């Protein structure tokens, strides 16, 4: 049997190769065939999950509830020091300096990253803004979110903090952050599907020992991850409870 591995479609383009290398490396360690499949949208990935086509996933926190509570996935690991934090950003020429100055009717540029969108909307709440009184402009990437702000077609943009920092210096200089979340608990995690569950301990061992040899370290680096950290099932359950207080 070939197992199926996928990563949340919001991976940073710089790390696509890294995930491929990781999959090759994992297959070798486990002596097991694993197919790596990337989906270009969250909807396409969720459909694959529903069809039972995913056995190992680097999951967006937004999908953790469905994966764990509906599909029986279990917690494996999370990257060290890599929480998902969201930023609300304006053009550096904007007159707006605080969230509370934002008015109904503004145009918001965002990507389909579900957790960033959720955190972004929460950070607009203090200004009494919600989907009923603002215009939402979907964008295919964070570069395009930045472009909307630079061109003045949108008033604010939602970014994943990490992706904002990946923008070129020249672009960043023309943008200004109004607020960055400091939530710490919301983050991507590696989850294992029921069909692959019997290898849990083995896979966990392999992941945690990646920093012990040069090759493993190189693989981590190519994914932009310092190290994997053990994740208890209760840690994911806690994050899911937290997410459920925030999701409408």
């Amino acid at each position, binding site marked *: 049997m070939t197992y199926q591995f996928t990563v949340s479609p919001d991976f940073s383009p710089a790390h696509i190769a890294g995930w491929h290398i990781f999959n090759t490396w994992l297959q070798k360690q486990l002596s097991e065939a694993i197919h790596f499949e990337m989906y270009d949208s969250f909807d396409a990935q969720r459909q694959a999950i529903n069809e039972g086509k995913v056995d190992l996933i680097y999951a967006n926190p937004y999908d953790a509830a469905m994966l764990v509570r509906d599909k029986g996935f279990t917690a494996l690991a999370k990257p060290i020091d890599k929480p998902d934090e969201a930023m609300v950003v304006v053009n550096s020429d904007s007159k707006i300096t605080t969230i509370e100055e934002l008015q109904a009717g503004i145009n918001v540029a965002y990507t389909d990253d579900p957790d960033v969108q959720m955190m972004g909307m929460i950070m607009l709440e203090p200004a*009494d803004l919600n989907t009923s009184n603002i215009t939402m402009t979907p964008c295919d990437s964070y570069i395009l979110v930045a472009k909307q702000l630079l061109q003045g077609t949108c008033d604010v943009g939602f970014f994943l903090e990490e992706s904002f920092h990946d923008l070129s210096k020249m672009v960043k200089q023309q943008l200004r952050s109004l607020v960055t979340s400091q939530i*710490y608990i919301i983050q991507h995690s590696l989850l294992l599907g029921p069909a692959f569950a019997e290898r849990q301990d083995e896979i966990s061992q392999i992941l945690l020992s990646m920093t012990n040899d040069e090759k493993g370290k190189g693989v981590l680096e190519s994914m932009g991850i310092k190290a994997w950290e053990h994740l208890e099932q209760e840690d994911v359950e*806690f994050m899911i*409870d*937290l997410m459920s*207080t925030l999701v409408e």
Partner: protein
Amino acid sequence: MQDMNPKDVKGEFRELTVQYFDGSKRTILVNDVEVLYPEGRLIVSRTDKDGVITHVNKSFIEMSGYSEQELVGVPHHILRHPDMPPAAFKGLWDTVHSGKRWQGYVKNLRKDGAYYWVYATVVANIRNGEVTGYTSVRRKPSRKKVQECAALYPTLF
């Protein structure tokens, strides 16, 4: 639970004795200083089934003014402000006991006698089909909603 200590409170304050739902009493000290909710934060706590705090995050500690040691193991009413009508908390408990998520605006009392408004959500933690406790996540409220609640709550006593 310990009474509030005048040494912790700045400026002028009122002293009140409150009685909680469980019958216990505490002397609280209240001034009228508001501390604004910080941007971008979530204040998180968890309780057992009876509302006794089991976990708090860093933002909770910073905003309440208490240390983690002072918070874990005590009932969540340690933050109860006398301006909050009992009906609000009855609504909270009735809602979560019926298996639903509760949301509302809450004025909380800090260790230093000041207060802060939050928009709070409480959900049950369900493990293997059983309620093991509750999680509450607070976020920054809109000023407009805070003003509405500040006008409404005194009418609910």
